[in-house]
């Protein structure tokens, strides 16, 4: 029965899987100044997404300057020698487009979404601010207040946000992944115009950038526009390789206990340091992707969900997650939020018991086949969002992967075996390389909410 099922799936999927690869129409070019151009064609609508990704993120910040990568991202909208503060976005909007930017540990990205015939104008302005940013105190001072308000909103107003920041700091003994992207408040308060300029001069250059154009555009047209606008910018000859302080061996389990009166659903969460996807070597990461699905992908069908949320439930919510798209380290995590009246210690015991049982019984082959089916299908569904495809390539290329790695990923996933998954699980489930966190409200506050 199991074999029949597998055969059936293979037959059903042979065509769409091949189509998925063909339909994700990707072309890559390298300009002479080191800028990589990636073109993703989708001619269904006359729109285009233009993104500039820099291989620099918060993990590249100098010590004491946490938050500067993200602060600079905000300041990139504050004008150049050719553009007034705010004019960049005004021109985008005057052309019916929208624009924004984002910062992560390993990358900083800027994007516009416009009608396809505006691509040249977007490139003209993005190329302009790659080297010609002009900052004044008048613009920098209020923007510092804005990022402090952003920290208040995203982190300080959220018990889960503060807890995550503390757990991350405990996870990394030496690597800058231990600092949050937004930065520590006391360091953010001290960031200056000069800090931003120094960071900009060092990292913003064509040989540290990837431009992705996705939508109704042909590769040769995009290349011609890129040569015109980005081509003349000189490379930064002093660009340093991205080598961050490395982690020493992790030999001691860490535990983080955080109480906050705003917590209404207490939970226990454990993050293990895990291998990330590496160029030409994504097999363990693929196995861990399956492991997260198997353990905590769905409340109804995952190992944690079925064991703890059904038949005499002891948990309100469970999940497992794996983040492997990262330059230096990945993380694998499990979370259990116990039902009312059950302690976090008991929830942790439940979690450990289920994981131990899983290590004994191994992978359920029917579940394994269902997950493979879903991964295959997601390749088809993803084709519907060219912006999502653009982001996928940008994040991968700034995290040390190549276009070939991105395109090989579905195959690597499909070639994972149950044995690979158990091997990866045995490798990752080592408490010495894990942070276990308890989040709850102080006793008194918990009672108050209960009333």
């Amino acid at each position, binding site marked *: 029965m199991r074999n029949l099922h597998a055969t059936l799936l293979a037959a059903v999927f042979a065509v769409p899987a091949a189509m998925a690869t063909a339909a994700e129409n990707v072309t890559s070019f390298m300009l002479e100044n080191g800028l990589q151009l990636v073109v993703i064609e989708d001619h269904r609508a006359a729109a285009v997404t233009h993104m500039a990704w820099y291989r620099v993120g918060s993990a590249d910040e100098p010590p004491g300057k946490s938050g500067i990568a993200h602060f600079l991202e905000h300041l990139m909208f504050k004008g150049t*020698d050719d553009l007034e503060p705010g004019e960049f976005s005004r021109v985008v*909007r005057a052309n*019916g487009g929208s624009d924004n930017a984002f910062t992560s540990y390993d990358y900083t990205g800027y994007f516009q979404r416009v009608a396809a*015939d505006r691509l040249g*104008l977007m490139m003209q302005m993005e190329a302009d601010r790659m080297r010609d940013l002009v900052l004044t105190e008048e613009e920098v001072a209020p923007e510092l207040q804005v990022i402090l308000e952003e920290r208040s*909103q995203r982190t300080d107003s959220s018990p889960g946000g503060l807890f995550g920041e503390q757990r991350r700091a405990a996870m990394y003994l030496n690597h800058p992944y231990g600092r949050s992207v937004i930065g520590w408040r006391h360091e953010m308060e001290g960031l200056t115009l000069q800090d931003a300029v120094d960071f900009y001069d060092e990292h913003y250059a064509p040989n540290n950038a990837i431009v992705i154009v996705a939508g109704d555009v042909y590769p040769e047209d995009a290349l011609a526009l890129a040569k015109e606008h980005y081509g003349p910018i000189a490379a930064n000859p002093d660009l340093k390789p991205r080598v961050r302080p490395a982690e020493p061996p992790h030999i001691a389990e860490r535990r983080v206990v955080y109480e906050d*009166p705003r917590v*209404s659903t207490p939970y226990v969460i454990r993050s293990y340091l895990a291998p990330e996807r590496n160029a030409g070597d994504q097999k363990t990461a693929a196995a861990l992707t399956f492991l997260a699905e198997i353990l905590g992908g769905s409340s109804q069908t995952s190992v944690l969900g079925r064991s703890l949320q059904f038949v005499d439930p002891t948990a309100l919510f469970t999940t497992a997650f794996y983040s492997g798209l990262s330059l230096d380290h990945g993380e694998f995590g499990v979370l259990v939020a116990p039902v009312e009246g059950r302690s976090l210690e008991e929830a942790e015991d439940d979690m450990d018991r289920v994981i131990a049982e899983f290590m004994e019984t191994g992978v359920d082959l029917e579940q394994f086949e269902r997950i493979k089916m879903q991964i*295959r299908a997601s390749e088809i569904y993803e084709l519907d969002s060219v912006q999502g495809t653009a982001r996928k390539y940008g994040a991968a290329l700034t995290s040390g992967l190549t276009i070939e790695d991105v395109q090989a990923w579905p195959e690597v996933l499909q070639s994972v075996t149950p044995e690979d998954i158990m091997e990866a699980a045995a490798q990752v489930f080592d408490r010495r390389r894990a942070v276990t966190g308890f989040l709850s409200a102080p006793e008194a506050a918990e009672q108050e*909410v209960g009333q």
Partner: protein
Amino acid sequence: MIRFISVLGLALFAALPARATVDIVPVTSPGGITAWLVEDHSIPFVSLEIRFRGGASLDLPGKRGATYLMTGLLEEGTGNMDAIAYAQRLEELAASFEFEAYDDAISISAQMLTENRDDAIAHLRGAVVSPSFSEDAIERVRAQVQSIIMGDANDPEDIASATFNQLAWGNHPYGSKREGTAESLAGLTRDDLIAAHQGALALDRVYVGASGDITGEELGLLLDTLLGGLPAEGAPMPDRADYALNGGVSVVDFETPQSVVVFGHQGIFRDDPDYIPAFILNSVVGGSGFASRLMTEVREERGLTYGIGSYLLPLDHGELYLGQFSSDNERVADAIEVVRDQWVDIAENGITQDELEAAKTYLTGAYPLRFDGNGRIANIMVGMQMSDLGTDYIPTRNDKVNAVTLDEIRTIAARLLQPENLHFVVVGKPEGLETTN
């Protein structure tokens, strides 16, 4: 050089595609169910968006939360399948079904592969037409909803919205949370859920949008299979909600470094002849991100917030004009003053010709970019049907926007923006602010 780029931007504008090219075909199934379809066979899957008008506002007195809980149980078992078997089958099909209960509608968002579409529809039909509502599933989901209610009671953003709605709408369902209260949720029985299901999911209130790899004929047959077993008529719609809030400030004490503010007053219905001028006006006030007045004055000029926005909320039975932002406790009073000043200024003086032109250019240019995926297209088509717009709305919408004059904007600004009625709900420890009245 500044001028050069600006001029270039404007010069290019002449070439802007001002019309969205989406080919909507109305479809009527053999059984009489109507739908709008955009066919696109380039990717082998289809997105379906199905909505039932009414939603959580159909809750009967004392049964608040019934529609929400019922919707949460649709995927928790049907026929001889329990929740686990149901989810396993869904995974085998690699389809995705989402069910949501909103104030005025229940939505079903589904996407399924072409090659197993019939099986996926048969599976979805079980959830929509014959959910089990088994006692163990009811208790499991009820506990999850209780935790949502407790979480919201501790979340300053939820407290702010809930407080505003309660003050604005009182005892109308809009005045309370659709999840219900801990008490009302605890009191719901299986019979209540069956009644909510029968009342909410009926054929006299269903709207369908479909986009992707399917023909009109296939869609018609699919809809009869999927929805054919539902009752012809559902529960009566709720009454109009009476707005009960005056201008002022309501402070809700909450221990947090940053106050959350929800502000607003009455708004405008979607079928109001001045809706499009109001929509353009709001785009300038606070509906369009960085370019808006509120974002410029509160964030860019003064750094008083990370983000501020405003929006028209035309519900079926009540209409609001709302805004929201967060500011550190010591600065929030200043931010509120800036908002009030803008309200007074725009109510009296309207906006400038430049602002109107920039808003028009943006809104008309951005409109065609919305139709960029099966799920989004299906979604937009259902929204249009529920707002009583015709299939000709898409090609003519930008003309309607372009036709609005500065005078019309002034008129709607004087009507829509009511500084004296502006009410601010502030959740936090705001300095220098107290509840008025």
